[in-house]
């Protein structure tokens, strides 16, 4: 996994389809390759992989605060936020860890990215905004308020990703059509089935912020 992640780290666009184009053969091959690779490594003579230990100090600007964190160079931004920052930033969710679902979406300098595909060391000197940075339960942004109003979350695990993606999109396009909203969240998966309400909420948020 670490290996493939390194190959993919340049892909910054959250659009799942573009991403798949970028890596070429995903799918069937990847599942098997993962296994075969594990086996080869395990059967090799010196089974201890070359030392990957060793950490570096990274300064991350998270939701307007400079935060120092000690991570391995291979640590993703997502895992740095969730597992290493103290206190943790757990709004972005770990769901697939390979850039297919969008639940870990954060903004890097205002642009949505999958934080599971960004290394923490590559996120220094950038402004990182997570769903927590967009609003709070007491003071939500317009998208967050519209999500509550339109029941656009059920289990809620995909919600931070959708909220972050749509918040960024409405800055770029404040008056989107339904088709444009669908296109904007094509890189985010929901399993409970909130899509129709997510679309409603996004369109309502757009209207609300224009009023």
């Amino acid at each position, binding site marked *: 996994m670490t290996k493939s992640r390194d190959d993919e780290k340049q892909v910054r666009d959250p659009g799942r389809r573009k991403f798949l184009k970028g890596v070429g053969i995903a799918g069937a091959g990847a599942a098997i390759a993962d296994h075969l690779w594990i086996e080869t490594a395990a059967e090799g003579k010196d089974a*201890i992989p070359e030392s990957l230990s060793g950490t570096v100090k990274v300064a991350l600007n998270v939701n307007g605060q400079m935060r120092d964190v000690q991570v*391995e160079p291979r640590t993703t931004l997502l895992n740095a936020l969730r597992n290493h920052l103290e206190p943790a930033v757990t709004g972005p969710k770990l769901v697939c860890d390979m850039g297919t679902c969008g639940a870990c979406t954060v903004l890097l300098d205002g642009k949505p990215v999958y934080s599971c595909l960004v290394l923490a060391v590559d996120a220094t000197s950038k402004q990182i905004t997570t769903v927590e940075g967009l609003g709070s339960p007491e003071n939500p942004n317009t998208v967050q308020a519209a999500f509550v109003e339109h029941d656009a979350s059920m289990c809620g695990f995909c919600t931070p990703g959708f909220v972050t993606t749509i918040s960024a999109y409405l800055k770029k396009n404040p008056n989107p059509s339904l088709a444009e909203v669908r296109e904007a969240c094509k890189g985010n998966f929901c399993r*409970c089935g909130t899509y*129709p309400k997510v679309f409603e909420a996004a369109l309502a948020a757009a209207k609300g912020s224009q009023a």
Partner: protein
Amino acid sequence: MQQQPQPQATPKPKKKIRVPRVVNGVEQMVEIEVDADAGPGWGPNDKHTLLNKRTTRVDGPLKVTGAARYTYDQRLPGMLYGRILRCPHGHARVTKLDTEAASKIPGVKAIVPAPLAEVRFAGGPVAAVAATTPEIAGDALRAIKVTYEVLPHVVHADRAIRPEAPKVVAEENNLQEKGKNGDPQKAEAALATADAIVEAEYISPRIHHACLETHGMVVDYRGGDSATIYASTQGIFTIPGDAAKELGLEESKVVSSVEHMGGGFGSKFGIGTEGMLACRLSKQTKSPVKLMLTRYDEFVMAGNRSGSWQKLKAGVKNDGTIVALTARQYRLGGVGQGSQAGQPYIYRMGDAYREVYALHTNEDSAIAMRAPGHPQASFAVESLVDELAYKIKMDPVAFRKKNLRDEVYHRQLDRGAKEIGWSRRNPVAGGNPGPLKRGMGCAIGTWGGGGNNQCKTDVTISRDGSVVVALGTQDLGTGTRTYTRAIVAEELGLGINDVKEQIGNSKLGAANPSGGSTTAPSVAPSVKDAAIKARMLLAERVAPLLGNAKPEEIVFSGGNVSANGKSVAWKQAAASLPAAGIAAHGEWRADLQARGVHGVCFAEVEVDVETGHIKPIKMVHVQDCGLPLNRLAMESQINGGMIQSLGMALWEGRVMDAQLGMQLNSGLGDYKMPGSLEMPEMVPLIDDEDKREAVIGMSEGCIIPAVGALVNAVFNATGLRVRELPITPDKILMGLMNATKVSTAE
């Protein structure tokens, strides 16, 4: 919690009521006994102030801002990260597990073997590690050397059924008979009297729950005699017993907790193998261990919806009466039993005979998934019914009504037909011109949705006016927190934010696991009972302020407590309480819930016959549920049912490699789920003609009929009957090509 003494009456007179009940997919009316004066009920469904409204969920603000804390978000001091090593073979025995090199990696704290040495499916657990970071845990997995004795495997049903196929379990047949029902001679005789016969096989693959929060837990054990388990679970009380056993503790010393959970859909009961391994790692290290499955693990070892293979033959008279059915049903549950509702499911089919088998393969066990066994049975029988209708040239809606006795379906079919615009439909399948062909289909579904007597609710009112309702249930995203609050607030005449709920912890009053749509009909009556008792206790206290009114005459409304033309504000009423406030305890009441829901789904699709691509255009689902606790959340549940069915009908299915015995589409990038671009216009409709003043679970009911509606819409659009799910473009193109060949040959 101290319980106020309740006036205890001698055994109460009983009254008998008739309620619908679903047995084996077939609904029938049964008589049950309830207390004659069971206390105030819900009242008419249209007279509520908070229930049956569009109420935004109370945990919404937490969920949309990232403040909601899920199991996956738990991070405890000194916590280790667990990972599971998986077997890459379809069937193998572990003969040697060499962990020496792995255990030398700095940061690796423990390695434990999986409970079984024989692994019957690729992806089965072999060992688990705990390390200081997830990355190091991954390094450890790669450094473990496993020696396997590889055994022959079989992963496809059509091969597993052959006598020479490798045995999934030694000495046992892969094919196991599970039951026969009806008289085969009578069914054959009735078939001989039919004017038309349809005989066909229907196949549906295994489907994944794909909960976005994977299975797993954080085991907080640091030595000593107690532990706390943060579990992503649908059943808080299914956790402590098994965890205590693994940790060697007393069950009463183990507490489980789930504040918010990221989806379950039937797959999260008990601690599971991952929980067992997490407990062992925690016990060995005396440290908190977080073991959440990876996405790959989730696909290969967290369960799935049973596949199905059904051979059906039915006969029909020209007037539309179905006279007979014979069915051979295979449940495809991998190493497990699988599930499939018995045919003819909801329909009356005269003389029906069925044989049901479990057919095993070397795959992870199927487990419960939203309406276990029902969408599979519904897909097959709704396809069959549609085929029969077209064969005798009868309208599919009229044909269904002809073979359904329950009037509720008749009204729901009429409403759904109107909403989708059934009159626009071309009755000739494939009859529309051009390469983009539209078509419509429909189907029906049923479910039980009754509650059971497991919930113990406590409502406390403090002297400062604050109100807390508490019980150990869990909110899967269905809105349990919201209606728990709303029931109490409505009873006390307060706003929803005047009441706080405490749920999600095994220290609270008992509650049932959330399966089979039993949560609302189990929780709501108990909460209502507690709320009524709290109101009466407060009324007795406040009576002196209201001209000594009788407690039952005191009105709680709009934040005021009133009687005899006098009124006091809520805060003032509460101030009359003693320092300890009021504590009322609620029990489940059978008369506040019922069983038996009905739903119908209509779908419109557009099929591009040049590419095979299917575009869903519109879906309508009409659902009853007695008293709708929260219309907004119910709409979301109905949407969710339709969308998950859309996946099953058109895109989803586990793909296995025969040679390797492995799942090929074990990630969200290649297991195709419904996404934003594929969403049709969705119309979730609540059937308010249902006047039952009772809470009935509806979440499973609304996932059942949509698959049938979609496949029937594809047929109406193209004239092509696809009998194996999912209906991917290749099946459309191959089917159309073969149909052309046949007609050319003719």
